């Protein structure tokens, strides 16, 4: 079974700073990390491989530095790593990103299962997983909390919803986006990490994946950011309560009723 895990390099949230002049995120010099949700997708792919055999490929799109998150995936146990890299991909929105990744998955060839994290924590859109499934016309399940059964031609999963869980059976090839409670990711050993750093990462440009130049990058992206600004300041005053519990409770209930919260 060939499994592709799509991963993303994201800014470490605590480091996200906004340029007061341009009101844009300062990316230069900020620390980047593997998108936290992707860890669970990598782990699940490795567990499936350990059960049914095959190969785990990790795929990312981004600058050269995104090799670091691929190395992290390799050190956990992924077999091969691919990076889509090039000026032509810059500025891609979720549509153009889904298209480019779907081309890469086709180029890997013979893929049975695609796993993604639930969403990336920088954009929070959760769009690229279903976007890839749409491009490849594959069945999809988002918010998967458990892979119940996998055979050579189908996968049965539990999907978390607001009201409980749905049990779904998808024909392979299929795409799943996974939640945090699906597994507990392994911590790579130092030896594995060292080996991963020496591993080869295949770098592809748009030509290598046969991408239509009119469908990648900023110019091919349906959405455009026209303005960014800091959010409205949420409040200026904090009402502070304390003292004896009974008095604090009385004051709190009074505040809540006064503000129409109860």
């Amino acid at each position, binding site marked *: 079974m060939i499994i592709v895990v799509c991963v993303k390099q994201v800014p470490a949230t605590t480091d996200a700073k906004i340029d007061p002049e341009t009101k844009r*995120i300062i990316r230069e010099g900020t620390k980047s990390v593997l998108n936290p949700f992707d860890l669970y997708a990598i782990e699940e792919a490795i567990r499936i491989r350990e059960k049914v055999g095959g190969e785990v490929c990790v795929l990312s799109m981004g600058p050269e530095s995104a090799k670091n998150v691929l190395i992290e995936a390799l050190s956990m146990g992924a077999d091969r790593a691919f990076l889509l890299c090039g000026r032509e991909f810059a500025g891609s929105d979720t549509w153009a990103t889904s298209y480019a990744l779907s081309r890469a998955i086709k180029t890997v060839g013979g893929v049975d299962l695609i796993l993604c994290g639930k969403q990336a924590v920088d954009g929070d859109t959760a769009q690229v997983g279903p976007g890839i499934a*749409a491009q490849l016309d594959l069945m999809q399940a988002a918010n998967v909390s458990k892979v119940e059964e996998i055979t050579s031609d189908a996968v049965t999963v539990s999907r*978390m919803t607001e009201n409980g869980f749905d049990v*779904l059976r998808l024909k392979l090839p299929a795409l799943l986006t996974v939640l945090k409670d699906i597994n507990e990711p392994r911590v790579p050993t130092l030896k594995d990490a060292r080996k991963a750093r020496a591993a080869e990462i295949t770098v592809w440009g748009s030509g290598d994946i046969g991408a239509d130049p009119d469908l990648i990058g900023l110019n091919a992206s349906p959405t455009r950011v026209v303005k960014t600004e800091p959010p409205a300041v949420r409040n200026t005053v904090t009402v*502070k309560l304390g003292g004896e519990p009974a008095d*604090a*409770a009385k004051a709190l*209930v009074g505040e*809540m009723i006064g503000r129409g919260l109860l």
Partner: protein
Amino acid sequence: MKVLDELDRKTYKNVWTISECTGGAVHPVSYELLGAARKLAAERGCEVWTIALGHGIGARLESLFAYGADKIIAVDDERLRVFNDELECHILERLVKKYRPEIILCAATSRGRALIPRLAGRIRSGLTADCTGLAIDPENGDLLQTRPAFGGNIMATIRSGEYRPQMATVRPRVMPMPEPEVGRMGEIIRETVTPEDALNVKEILGTIGRHEPTVNLTDARIIVAGGRAMKGPEGFKLLEAFADRIGGAVGASRAAVDNGWIAYPHQIGQTGTTVQTDVYIACGISGQIQHLIGMQSCKTIIAIDIDDTTPMMKLADIAVKGDLFEIIPAVMKELDERSGA
């Protein structure tokens, strides 16, 4: 659909909302979407249509007129009882090509967040997730979509001007609930599931309700959330009682979930659920950035903590300093006394 010139773009009209009727009941967010759609339609001088996919939804459709729909496209089919990504996407793709809406609004529920990006991928159209503001650009009539990014640290305004339909998702309780207009009626267009729609779709084997106490953080008006200071599962029993008393849902920080005190569906924050409730009561949650970005858009934040120097106590609108194991029972007692119990 490729980039459209101005003439092509003009053939797309009306604002659509995708109503949420999974399970047979109309989810309240459907009405909030209609309220937002009415404002946009007024500026565009067009109609509001809503798409209702589900099973046994007939009797409930009229409420969608009352909240602002001019027309309803209804597809009532047993196979639409549980959300099926591929099936619903096939139907929508067909309807979009047939009726050519200018704007589509959908709820950012677990269903909407899976369905709409798939549709956008199929029809090559722009999609903006989790919008908190929607407006029409007075210059060119395009939809301007404002959304938080980087965990709410920045607000971005997005346009998908060259493409139609322009699509956006909105979380429950972000847009105001409009006043219903009782007796307001419109036209129902009935569509069916075609054999092509049902090709190459997943099989639904079953649904399981929660074995844990039910939690629906996205729809809750009040959330009572606990962190490390709850000390254990017993602490969350206290929070459950408190939440029950005030009609809220129980949330948790990652620390509490990782300790096994409460199940993952309750987790709020970067690797859990993002919430925008009217009231958020943080009990013994210090407020690490990963938690804050999941809840800082809540309208009123109340924090209870023994330590008043934490980020959460500083962020809060009302900060109560004290032992939560004393404060919470005292609050419940106070509520009982006021209600004369």
